[in-house]
């Protein structure tokens, strides 16, 4: 046990040292660092695998973080050791540095793209999809007429929709929100429609026995039963919304926003800023997905997937 811990500490020190040496401007330093890290890598992987096997809360929380750190370190060593050009793949240290230097810009972009376009579009698109699903479910006419048209709308390519929305709603964030609405509306419509139809014959017969009308049946049986479907759409849409807003900014925008930043800085070869923006997007996307998953767990605690 002590031996393993000792070798893990040794490997970690070796890894940090080689990361430091790799950036030194001595000739042959990167190659030497790469060699050292090749020694450290198997030891680190072994130590991490052993740690991840533990069934403690600390291990469960720390394992993915340590694994991520290992990947970042490996990325750093490979890029520096093999002299990979900066435009192809900057090292994580450079991305982190860009993140800190451009924090103000990144925050402004985040506010423009995420807090305005994504959240407004997501709320409107999901809300409208849910409301239309209720209407479609209530009216056979709409089910026959609207649902197939919705199918058509769902296959419209976002790169085609975005310029049209810019024409309609202007350069600022409302046109991006509109793209997000178009993207998120249909998944919510389809999922909610399926969820409302997901009740069993016996459960419906039970409501019929009590002479329950449309509204009690909807509120007490069909909406609760549809919740797992609705949450599937909410999670799917949280990622779609971010993609939609970022891509939409490629087609005309004021001089801010995450999509604008990515397209202009990529054109200027500032790949570290592009990667820093991608990091912000990935963090925002994961956090919102995680938050919705937590709400789902609380709201559909009764579902077989979450029962304890």
């Amino acid at each position, binding site marked *: 046990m002590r031996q393993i811990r000792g070798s893990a500490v040794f490997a970690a020190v070796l890894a940090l040292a080689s990361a430091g040496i790799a950036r030194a401007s001595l000739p042959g330093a990167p190659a030497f660092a790469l060699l050292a890290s090749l020694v450290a890598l198997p030891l680190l992987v072994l130590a991490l695998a052993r740690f991840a096997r533990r069934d403690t809360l600390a291990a469960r929380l720390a394992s993915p973080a340590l694994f991520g750190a290992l990947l970042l370190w490996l990325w750093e060593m490979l890029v520096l050791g093999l002299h990979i050009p900066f435009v192809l793949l900057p090292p994580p240290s450079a991305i982190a540095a860009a993140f800190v230097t451009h924090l103000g810009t990144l925050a402004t972009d985040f506010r423009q793209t995420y807090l305005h376009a994504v959240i407004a579009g997501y709320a409107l698109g999901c809300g409208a999809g849910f409301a239309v699903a209720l209407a479609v479910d209530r009216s056979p006419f709409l089910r026959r007429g609207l649902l197939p048209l919705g199918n058509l709308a769902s296959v419209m390519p976002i790169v085609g929709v975005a310029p049209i929305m810019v024409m309609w709603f202007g350069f600022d964030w409302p046109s991006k929100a509109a793209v997000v609405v178009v993207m998120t509306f249909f998944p919510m419509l389809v999922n909610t429609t399926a969820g409302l139809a997901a009740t069993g014959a*016996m459960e419906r*017969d039970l409501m019929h026995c*009590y*002479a329950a009308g449309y509204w009690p049946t909807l509120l007490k049986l069909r909406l609760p039963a549809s*919740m797992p479907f609705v949450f599937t759409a909410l999670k799917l849409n949280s990622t779609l919304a971010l993609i939609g807003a970022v891509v939409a900014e490629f087609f005309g925008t004021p001089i801010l926003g995450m999509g604008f930043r990515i397209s202009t800085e990529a054109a200027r070869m500032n790949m570290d800023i592009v990667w820093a923006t991608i990091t912000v997007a990935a963090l925002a996307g994961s956090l919102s997905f995680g938050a919705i998953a937590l709400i789902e767990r609380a709201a559909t605690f*009764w579902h*077989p997937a979450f029962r304890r």
Partner: protein
Amino acid sequence: MGESALLASETVPAPNAPVVVEARGLGVAFETDGQRVNALTSVDLTIRRGDFVSLIGPSGCGKTTLLRAIADLQAPSGGTLTVNGMSAAEARRARAYGYVFQAPALYPWRSVARNVMLPLEIMGMARGERTERAERYLRLVGLGDFARKFPWQLSGGMQQRVSIARALCFEPTLLLMDEPFGALDEITRDGLNLHLHELWRRTGMSVVFVTHSIPEAVFLSTRIVVMSARPGRIIDVIDSPLGAARALGIRESAEFLAVAHRVREGLRAGHSYD
């Protein structure tokens, strides 16, 4: 001793008790692939207040269809059917019956108590009374301590008892049960049969009970309706000579075995048409 003392001589219900269900020439037909299948033909049946009627027969004999027709879950294609003197649809809208399905059909997002309260909520009962009723009927089926649990935390037998409490809590005069204990093991089933028998004795309600099991039908019923398949129809109606008060022990008595024998003969006769 014992057995004969349990067999009270009274027969229930009184022959002039009010009619609860009346079927005359009742037929139900299904349309599948343009072909007409007679699930039930020319059924004549009178069920009076306080009756415990079992419908027994092979699969496809229409016993569940008959129960569903009484509950207005299935539209008849011919004949007349009245429940409490009204059409089946009117009786359903007047919440005349409680229905217990083959499976518990509890809503997993509701606690046990809130499942029992479901019909009371739909009927617009005040919250205080709802809670009181749910408590009372859960205690009646022996689940007073499980009110706050969720259905999926209970065994199958307990879940079915919750569904019985749910069917009873709005105090209908007619209880319709579709093979409620079919999925349970023998011992659990015995216990629930005894429980149901006592409930029926205490409340004086009418019960229509669909089953596959001869001992279950004979033990519980005042009348046993033997049915046959293709087309579904009634081939025998047996008035039970067993008294109102029953314990599981009567299943070895001569009277019990005689009734069971007649039911079996009826079922066999129904089968020989195949």
